[in-house]
């Protein structure tokens, strides 16, 4: 069931840099509980679009509303959990335990003078438990594997109890086993915790069975409302061609 107020309401978004059109006339809505993947070629504008949704880039024209409010008036950023592309590429010398990182997720929810409350502690523990990294909480984040770091970054995003989780190619630097585990976790968060998921990926075959909608971004946006039939979506076939079929069949053989 769709709620009346979408989490994101994007209308006629354009982004032009030095005369070059990066995004052209993008419009879509994202509702609570959805599970959406964004695919597209490198340089097609996927990351730019995500950055605009988060207020990190300003569109040349168009409008973005978050929870019904214009982006510039939106203040409840803790409702949005963001895991950037380079999240697993942690500076190994950065002095942070896993718990230090996950606690960051609680900062935006607290006042300046407020210390760490029992609720904060409980939410941090809950996020660590959900990501199955409770036993790693005192470990230095720089010593973890790519898959473990990925779960730490998602735990940080979950610690603020977000309504939506936005992930930009979260599997960069992560092994295949961890990737499978990651998609299972995402599906679980979506189904059991009703967290809306929006993520950029290249793994179109792997995700085809779980996602609700597929956005193809290549300057323009094409939305596939039935990803099970995504291979018949013209844009997907154009972008991935025979590789899309191969990936999809490969997934179903296992």
């Amino acid at each position, binding site marked *: 069931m769709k709620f009346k107020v979408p989490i994101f309401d994007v209308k006629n978004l354009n982004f032009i840099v030095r005369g070059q059109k990066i995004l052209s006339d993008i419009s879509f809505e994202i509702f609570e509980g959805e599970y959406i993947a964004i695919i597209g070629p490198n340089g097609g504008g996927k990351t730019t679009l995500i950055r605009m949704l988060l207020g990190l880039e300003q569109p040349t024209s168009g409008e973005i509303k978050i929870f019904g409010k214009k982006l510039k008036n939106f*203040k409840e950023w803790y409702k*949005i959990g963001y895991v*950037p592309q380079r999240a697993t590429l942690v500076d190994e010398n950065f*002095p*942070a335990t896993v718990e230090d990182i996950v606690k*960051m997720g609680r900062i*935006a929810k607290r006042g300046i*003078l407020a210390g760490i409350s029992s609720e904060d502690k409980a939410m941090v523990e809950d996020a660590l438990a959900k990501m199955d990294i409770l036993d790693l909480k005192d470990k230095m984040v720089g010593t973890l594997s790519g898959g473990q770091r990925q779960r730490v970054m998602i735990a940080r995003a979950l610690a603020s109890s977000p309504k939506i989780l936005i992930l930009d190619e979260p599997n960069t630097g992560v092994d295949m086993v961890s990737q499978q585990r990651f998609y299972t976790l995402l599906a679980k968060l979506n189904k059991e915790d009703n967290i809306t998921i929006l993520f950029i990926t290249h793994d179109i075959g792997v995700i085809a069975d779980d996602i609700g909608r597929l956005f193809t971004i290549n300057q323009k946006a094409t939305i596939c409302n039935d990803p099970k039939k995504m291979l018949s979506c013209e844009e997907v076939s154009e972008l991935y061609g025979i590789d899309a079929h191969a990936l999809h069949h490969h997934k179903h053989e296992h």
Partner: protein
Amino acid sequence: MFEMFEYDFMQRAFVAGLFIAVLASISGNFIVLRRYSLMSETLAHSALVGVAVGLVAGYNPLWVAVGVAIGAAWLIEYLRSAFSLYSDAILAIILSGSLAVAVIIVSLGGAFNNSLFSYLFGSILSVTNEDVITIVIVGSISLLFLLLFSKELYFIAYDEEVAQTSGIKVKFLNFLLVSVVAIIIALSIRVVGSLLIGALMVIPTVAALQYRVGFRNTMLISLFFALFSVIFGMSLSYYYSLPSGATIVLSIIVIFIISLIINKK
């Protein structure tokens, strides 16, 4: 060893020095993690312009240095955000430009003397009662800010964009951080000297990072290193009549080398 505390000037120098060790090491944690290490050096050179103006015009150099250093910090942040220039290049330009302006002011004003030398390299003899009061009061306010926003500043140091998307006022806190660092640097030049204060901000944190512990413990270790090097360095300065800034910085460099060796992978 304790006979040096029989002198009023040593008591003043130690109160000021220990306070500066606390301020420099705590703020240094954020500066190093933000990759702003060269920033402290640049602001110290900018503070020298204030010292030069103060000496030539007859104002208290400490206060003029505070004003000029804050102005330089804001200019750096403005240039960084308004123009597509390399951050380290901006710092290099302001650093050398400030030094050039300071040298011209003191040359024209005829203030190239021992007084300027003490501001360049620090002097335990030059710390006045007024300096100690200024360092304690203004330093306490600066420290309060750092502690109040430490979690936010730590988050920004970890990932500025993720902090921004979490609703943290990154731009505002960046300006406040560089302003507080500018104030701390200006306060420190009496004891450590404007050419050496950057080292007291950066090296204790870099040495503490070698122990690969969480943020809170890194901060505590860097604080301990800074306090130890100030006590040891000022004692050397007293017994061998050497500039205090130089002896403090050499002490912290020795600690850094030991930390590197014992934590070698």
